[in-house]
């Protein structure tokens, strides 16, 4: 990655240079120095820059995400700004009306925060712990597979086919997540398995 001299660190360097040289050279008075000192620092100078791609259409524009905090240092990091990546050959820093509003997706009021559970016939979702949800899902799936996995067809040939549980995979997940999902779904015998490419 050519991130060694990022825009952020460049701005920091430039800013420091200005402060060190011009203040003295131009003979600022104390009042002027105080005025300069209270000018707010460039907001993005204190953020972490991360190279990313837009998750919407398949142009896959390069974006830069500016976060408060650095996940790589173990911080809790929060997105403060997203903009186009000028180094990216396809979009060269530009974004469309969807990409330009990406921060709203990350911070949408309808982001899901907790596993929720709806009982049969109920009119509401209720909180459930991850452990409880995952244990129950694994149990439901195993019971269905044990009851309905077709081991052999009429001719006695191995078919190992599970048609009573199906899965749709997300075509906005990464290739790596997709590979983990593929291994999971195909190894347990799910055949009703598609992604958005089907529709």
């Amino acid at each position: 990655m050519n991130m060694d001299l990022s825009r952020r660190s460049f701005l920091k360097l430039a800013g420091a240079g200005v402060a060190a040289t011009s203040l003295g050279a131009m003979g600022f008075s104390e009042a002027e120095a105080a005025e300069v000192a209270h000018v707010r620092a460039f907001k993005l100078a204190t953020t972490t820059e991360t190279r990313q791609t837009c998750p919407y259409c398949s142009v896959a524009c390069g974006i830069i995400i500016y976060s408060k905090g650095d996940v790589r240092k173990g911080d809790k990091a929060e997105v403060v700004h997203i903009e186009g990546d000028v180094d990216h050959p396809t979009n060269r820093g530009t974004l469309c009306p969807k990409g330009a509003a990406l921060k709203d997706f990350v911070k949408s009021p309808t982001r899901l925060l907790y596993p929720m559970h709806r009982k049969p016939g109920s009119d509401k979702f209720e909180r459930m712990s991850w452990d409880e949800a995952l244990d129950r899902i694994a149990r439901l799936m195993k019971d269905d597979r044990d009851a309905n996995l077709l081991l052999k067809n009429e001719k006695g040939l191995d078919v190992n086919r599970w048609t009573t549980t199906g899965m749709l995979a997300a075509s906005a997940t990464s290739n790596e997540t997709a590979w983990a999902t593929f291994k999971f779904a195909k190894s347990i015998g799910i055949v009703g398995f598609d992604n958005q490419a089907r529709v």
Partner: protein
Amino acid sequence: MTNAWTDIKNTDLVVVMGGNAAEAHPCGFKWVTEAKAHRGAKLIVVDPRYTRTASVSDFYAPIRQGSDIAFLNGVMKYCIDNGRVQWDYMKAFTNASYIVKDGFGYKDGLFTGYNEEKRDYDRSTWDYVIGEDGFAVTDPTLEHPRCVWNLLKEHLAPYTPELVEQVCGTPKDKFLKVAEMISECSTPTKTMTSMYALGWTQHSKGSQNIRAMAMLQLILGNIGVRGGGMNALRGHSNIQGLTDLGLMSHLLTGYLTMPSEKDTDFETYMSTRQFKPLRPGQTSYWQNYRKFMVSFQKAMWGDAATAENGWAFNYLPKLDVPAYDVLRMFELMNNGKVNGYICQGFNPILAFPNRTKVTSSLSKLKFMVTMDPLETETARFWENHGDFNDVDTASIQTEVFQLPSTCFAEEDGSLTNSGRWLQWHWQASSPPGEAKHDSWIVAQIFLRMRALYAKEGGAFPDPILNLSWEYEDENEPTAEELAKEINGRALSDVMDPTDPTKVLVAAGKQVVNFSQLKDDGSTMSGCWIYSGCWNEQGNNMGRRDNHDPDETGAYLGWTFAWPLNRRTLYNRASADINGKPWDPTRKLLEWDGAKWTGYDVPDIAPTAKPQDVGPFIMNQEGVSRLFVRGMMRDGPFPAHMEPFESPVENVFNRKMRGNPVARVFASDAAQLGTSAEFPYAATSYRLTEHFHYWTKHNRVNSALQPEFFVEISEELAAEKNIAHGGWVRVWSKRGSVKAKAVVTKRIRPLICDGKPVHIVGIPLHWGFTGSAKKGFGPNSLAAFVGDANIETPESKAFLVNIEPSTAPKDKEVNV
């Protein structure tokens, strides 16, 4: 895409048909603007609506949705009749000279071998004459009456400009202008690119729409060259990746295919996947299938996959139907034959046709699991929202788990764009609340199931207990670990085939790319076409060298493109039979007398002599196919077929409805409407301010396009007394929606088969969750029928009726 977004700047003519790139792919479309501004390229748009792409075009022609094949066949006929063919390319690089078996023919809208009862063809005559030497018989003079070229000319004969006007509603003069502009690209120095999207795929003959344009591009010599190609503009950021990785019912990774019940063991499976060359000396690259398949099985099941057990072939499920595609699954679900369903980042309540049926189907599940970063209508399909989701909550007995997942900003990994670039991205922020990575969620369900099988036993636990799951923290495989697995590594020392004393890849090392994969179990690779993405050089998907020598648009140092970092597929075809570029100013590759040199990674062996080895290395012929043999269910040539719901009859066969071999379930056949009852031709599309059903959760996008609407012409509005901005009800045989009417000049009635056809345009971005106003989607109305080859629903052409109405009502809340 055969080419890349950045390559579009090299073109002379852009044809946008079956898509609307300016609105759906805005930043990619900027390369069209670039070609127009700096190369003097022209832009043609053929679409039922005067879209924003059309608004910046050099020429716009209207067309009735679902009639693209008639139009494209008409253009092909025009080019051939007027000698506008790149003859040397067509003769050298297509199967025009191949002789077809006697018996094959076409009459009354049907090819030879049709069986009405089975809704299928006997395709045995749709093939080449094979000589005694085992190779296909050809006539390079193209004089043989049964050669592909002459059969194609015969097949295209009816597609006159008059027929195009009758079927498509495109005025003859406009069609001729488009045909003339396209035909100019038959010279070796003029190139056209095709940019298409769901406007071509979402039809009961979607595959044939695309095939027709591919054939036109081959006749014009526009495949494999800079500024050319067939460029599918994929709809999601990683729809290309998930398909490459085989997350589909009929696929394994890298376009290896799922076994069927006929594949009784590994050798039987392999016997139909040998891909012997059909012409002497051809590459027929799928001859390496066994290497990729064995390496795949080793990636899945490690030591449990051995030569003795046929590489654990019996672990794979075997299909008894072509696919358990989503339409088949929801049909089964609606018949009470599915108990559980997982929706990972997928919103079928708004994505699949005939929403009433989709809701009814989900209501019959015992349990449903959703994984999303945002609320979806699917997770809340049981919740009553008045007119917007009119369900009887108490009667729905489905248990629902809504699991919160991370979004892109919160994870590492790669996405594959339309141009096949695998681009790595880095985590920028922390997940909110208790949201988790999808890979963690999937791992958790898997590990818990595996633990239950280890403890309790159960039905055929072997493929679960033996699934290779070797990650540092098995609870959460990292993106790096998974990417390395996809690339593949040596499991034991791989020796150099040219010097058996030398180790090519030491055990445990990453293979450099798929050329090092073996069929003896000594290598593993999750997805062969991605091999090279993370080898011993490191993460090639994270490369960020944006230099572009001579400004070809190739960017070989930017991330990684499959296969082998190749940027333009079939690039050997950019040069003539002797290896000289067709257009020296747009050189991609050149034969220097000993090897191929140039700006891209050659797609044939670097030392393969140009006269000997054809460019279409994945085909057994070494050339491309104008005649596709029996490989497509609905014909070896594209033929005009009407949508299942069409305002007019098929002029080739007035009794025939839709695609004659497309699968239609009985209950859905009963729900097809006629033009007497539903006179208007509806279509669906995206707006530039929204992405599917996601951005209605964003305040900015919801403010830009807050409310569901439908678009109609001024003529239809006057006829039905509909006011601009007034409420209308739009209904089909399957459902009803209420929307604001946008009365616009962008849509005009067409005259098809002698009668006026009105078009109703329905955008697809609203539901009952999020920040935007509640609304509906076109899927409430669309028909539950798919493409004959791949089962993509016919969401782009269906029939509706329309009338002035009142606002829809939300559920009354008593507080």
